[in-house]
């Protein structure tokens, strides 16, 4: 785990140093050589690159990931400030996907030949093929431009819960979150439906299901009591991993809906060459992924005792 993070930090740092000279973007266009030099020194950009990395790493361990060139505030604070907005959106999208996709997938898996299942599968194929940013644009077009019932940008009114701002509990905030969360969840729904269906179909052929059927277990109990447990194992793993994927895709959704989360911060920072924020974002996301992968591995062990942890 530590190895992964170190590798990521080196790669991220080395590569961000190749992305143009941030000093030239920050100083006024009529700045003299001496002023440019002074700015360079203030930002610590005149030191050799390994020294810069070493300073960066020591600071990073102390939780100091550099100061944003643009906002003149600690990069980590900037990101953490916006993280709840992103997490709120992803969690809502994820829950929505889980609630809608799993029943549809189970149904399609249990009755593969019925026309409803075929409809579900065709819809999921469309969902998988849909570029999420286009879906967002189309939702804005329909919800905000044509019908004019849903707001297309921002978070709306927020309320504090334990010091964290959340949108979905106020009416205004809820209206704001519908379209971004829907955009984010469609791809997930499509994928989860297919995965659940495949899992259920595979399980239905197994002997213990046939035995339960012969024993006279009702159809509903058979599906939800016997088949679901084994069919959902891959779904849960993917659920965890997809959470990371969603955080990455939130970048696009946030840009389209001007949702003030950390993904939008990343894109804005990229446009403004705000190197410390980019580096801090990537490191933070790397940590999140490492933690998620680790948690999924452990959860897997609890769900499926046949798997041995090494």
């Amino acid at each position, binding site marked *: 785990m530590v190895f*992964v993070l170190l*590798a*990521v930090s080196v790669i*991220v740092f080395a*590569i*961000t140093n*190749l*992305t143009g000279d941030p000093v030239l973007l920050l100083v006024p266009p009529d700045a003299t050589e001496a002023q440019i030099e002074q700015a360079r020194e203030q930002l610590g950009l005149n030191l050799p690159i390994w020294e810069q990395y070493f300073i960066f790493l020591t600071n990073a361990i102390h939780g100091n990931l550099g100061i944003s060139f643009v906002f003149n505030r600690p990069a980590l604070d900037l990101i953490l400030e916006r993280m709840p907005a992103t997490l709120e959106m992803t969690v809502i999208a994820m829950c929505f996907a889980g609630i809608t996709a799993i029943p549809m997938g189970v149904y399609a898996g249990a009755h593969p030949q019925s026309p409803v299942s075929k409809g579900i599968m065709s819809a999921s*194929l*469309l969902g*998988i*093929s*849909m*570029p*999420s*940013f*286009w879906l967002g*644009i*189309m939702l*804005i*077009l329909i919800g*905000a*431009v044509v019908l004019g019932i849903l707001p297309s940008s921002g978070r709306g009114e927020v309320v504090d819960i334990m010091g964290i701002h959340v949108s979905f509990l106020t009416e205004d905030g809820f209206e704001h979150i519908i379209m971004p969360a829907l955009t984010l969840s469609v791809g997930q729904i499509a994928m989860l439906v297919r995965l659940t269906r495949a899992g259920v179909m595979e399980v239905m052929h197994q002997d213990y299901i046939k035995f339960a059927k012969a024993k006279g277990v009702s159809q509903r109990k058979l599906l939800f009591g016997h088949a679901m447990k084994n069919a959902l194992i891959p779904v849960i793993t993917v659920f965890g991993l997809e959470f*990371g*994927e969603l955080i*990455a*895709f939130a*970048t*696009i959704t946030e*840009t*389209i809906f001007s949702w003030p989360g950390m993904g939008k911060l990343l*894109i804005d920072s*990229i*446009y403004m060459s705000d190197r410390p924020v*980019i580096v801090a974002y*990537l490191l933070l*996301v*790397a940590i999140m*992924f*490492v933690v998620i*992968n680790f948690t999924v591995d452990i959860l897997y062990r609890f769900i499926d005792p046949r798997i041995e942890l090494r």
Partner: protein
Amino acid sequence: MKTVFAKLLQSEAYFNFKHNYLAIAGAILLGFFLLLAIFGPFVTPQNPYNLKELNLSDAYLPPSVMDSSSHFLLGTDQQGRDMLSGIVYGVRISLMVGISAMLISLVIGTTLGLIAGYRGGWLDSLIMRVADIQLSFPGMLIALFIMVVFGRGIDKVIIALSMVGWVLYARTVRGATMAERSKEYVDAAKVCGYPDRMIMFKHILPNVLTPLIVIATIQVGNFIITEATLSFLGVGVPTTQPSLGLLLSSGYQVLFSGLWWVSVFPGLTLLLMIVGTNLLGDFLRDELNPKLK
């Protein structure tokens, strides 16, 4: 050559294909877009790259069915560019990027996977460790980051996508190669004294290729989405060569002025193209997976 073709027509796969409407629909869609990409420039009303053919007074014209004064079938964008021509050229770029990045990933990934699976040892650990690290991050994020470093450009998008895409092939090929390595025909080839390189590429490779066809088909679709997304975010292809993603991004900017056709049509095209690859990919997966037979 003729016998290969005749054999193909008599094969079980072709029989199943003939009776699978979805697969046929996918193949037709893909074939249509491929033909459009190759021959499109001969049939489009204008060349959207050629600024001389654009007329600013034609800007923001709606599709001709809605407004009889407009002679543009799908309307025009803010530069007076015919949307239909723009889309045809965009399909060209999207398909070119998707297919070439897929081919590069395929070659790099297969080679690395073969070496890792056949040789084993530290080389195997190294390649697979890199693949593991890379797989724990979403490809979209890695591609975005690479594009930020390299800057815009079609060639750079292809490089970024290939750097993301090789992993899948490498892992699949490595697993299959490890299974093949202990089989008798490999031992026989070794006894005959063939060099390792030849055993890997002439003997093992043909036996591990099948699952790659499915990955490759679906990957083209994924790459096209990723390219469009990168271009939409402004880090993909340059503005002089508008891909579908870039067209969509200009459509997004004028969305609130009610100019829906600039964003609806390129997106629909994108959707159809990817539905095509996914339909075909699904069929191939069912067809080539011996477990389902």
